[in-house]
């Protein structure tokens, strides 16, 4: 089973880059030829391109929401989103991209796509490379949750 872990976000936009920070931590902890860890500052169609060919995809990203606590980490199956979107005015949502790809007969879409989301009330609009205190505290939690997700799969496949 081939898995991709994709940290998504923009590392020059403060907390928005949390997914990349998490991916960087995971790179230090995971050494498995069947697991690819990468980062991406993109969404929608481009994001789907990066996932194609893997059995499972774990997307680690910031989630802007008014629910929950700032810095809370949640595991969310992709199907739980009715219309998910990257905050990008020039692209479609990942769900839309997947629906379209399926219609076109694309058969390399991962069977399982999981989001590890770091909840935040606001997405910063100011350039900077540092995470805020609350969001930085979420990084080890998200790393643990991702590792658990992988271990679960390893058990099943062994």
């Amino acid at each position, binding site marked *: 089973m081939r898995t991709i872990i994709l940290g*998504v*976000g*923009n*590392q*020059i*936009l403060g907390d*928005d880059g949390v*997914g990349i920070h998490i991916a960087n931590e995971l790179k230090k902890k995971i050494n498995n030829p069947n697991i690819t860890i990468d980062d*991406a*500052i*993109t*969404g929608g*169609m*481009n994001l789907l*391109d990066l996932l194609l060919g893997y059995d499972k995809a774990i*997307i680690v*990203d*910031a*989630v*802007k*929401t*008014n629910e929950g606590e700032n810095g809370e980490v949640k595991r*969310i199956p992709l199907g*739980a*989103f*009715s*219309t*998910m*979107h*990257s*905050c*990008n*005015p*020039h*692209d*479609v949502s990942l769900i*839309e991209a997947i*629906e*379209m*790809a399926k*219609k*076109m*007969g694309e058969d390399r879409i991962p069977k399982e796509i999981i*989001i590890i*989301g770091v909840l935040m009330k606001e*997405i910063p*609009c*100011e*350039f*900077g490379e540092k995470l805020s205190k609350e969001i930085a505290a979420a990084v080890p939690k998200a790393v643990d949750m991702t590792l658990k997700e992988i271990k679960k799969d390893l058990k099943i496949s062994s």
Partner: protein
Amino acid sequence: MKTITIDPITRLEGHGKINIFLDGKGDVDNAYLQIPELRGFERFAQGRRAEDMPQITSRICGVCPVAHHFAATKALDAAFNVDPPSAAKKLRELMYMGYYIYDHTLHFYYLGGPDFVVGPDAPPAKRNVLGVIEKAGVEIGKEVIKHRAYGQKITAILGGKATHPVCGLPGGVSKGLNKEEVKEIDKMVKSCIDFAKFSLKLFDDIVLKNKTYVDLILSDPYQLNTYNMGLVDKNNKANFYDGKIRVTDQKGKEHVKFDVKDYYKNIVERVEEWTYIKFPYLKNVGWNGFKDGKDSGIYRVGPLGRLNAAEGMATPLADKEYKRFYETLGGKSVNSTLAFHWARLIELLYATERAQELINDPEITSEKIRNPVGEPGEGMGVTEAARGTLIHHYKLDKKGLIDKANLIVATTNNSGAINMSIRNAAKGIIKKGKVNDGLLNMVEMAFRAYDPCFACATHTLPGGMPLEVNIYDSEKKLFKKLRQNL
């Protein structure tokens, strides 16, 4: 006064909000688009190594990484007082054409097109790319995916990652092309030319042969008589990668033409208290409020701005389409906001033809792709981002570190015009306070045509498309609220 707020704008995400103010009769008095602007770039850039700017600025916006990459690289050419070898310029331009191919394809088929192909009154659930495929057929969907991917592939071959290019260096590029790569690109480009021709035919069949749509394009609410701006070559043909900035007036006559190094002599950025977005205008005309016409310095950029600011396209097929565009829509300038979509497809055709010229140029495999840099100083660079003129300006210290940085991005250049387009569309469409989803979409269409990019490269994953409509009474008290996914 009643206020209607559409928040955020569907499909154009990035926490945009449109406020429409109604008068006592329920007609539109004024409208404002409020969008978040990323702040603090100058401070962020200060003290960084100048040669890192092409990489850093390509992360400003998840939409236009290639445009920022080369605007920064060209500003550094100027700041280090170096002229890249001709092969390097051709490689950069070829990569730029790849960017236009995927960007314009994406916009027409996924974002702007659904309004026309599926219809402006269709329910929102149908007004998307899936609706387009349903109407145009699965085979066309496959072609769209294929050619968008070709554009990305061309960009990636030349620039490293398509979404994060690394090839631009002051004085040239870091990587050339080998014969195998030339063959691969050539094959993709040939297919892209056919795809661009097909797209124009599709536009012809679905939009231009439908009188309702042509009437809509030419209808009053979508007219805006501003100045137009775009890069042109020495023959005043539109150019995406290089040239002089040319501004034409409402009738298509040249108003001013200047080098990017003189941008601050020609462009002033106005600040309004209700938004962080600045509103650039022509200095020698002046600011006259959110008005169009000869006495208002507001101008438009992007596909329509570029076509209006030029005297033709530099490739044969695109030039033929250019002429047909003006013949069909009543001569210069075309001031209909919805004509942006057609203009975009003409540019798609130009990008593919220009890519073919470049890939067939024997110099494209040259190994002379970089010239040594001089002493650090000050430099400005300009490119045409898919959505309009993009200017980078850097002042370096003696060690080659950034001392001052200023950017004018494409959507900022269009911000005054976008505001007016929204207001005019709202005025023509919303009468006596009557608002429904179809009507709101007509307002959205007005600014979606610009393909704006809200300096927002964030990638959040909320649990549904949030939409909020607030209606306030004359005392600004909320009396009606419609919302979804919030």
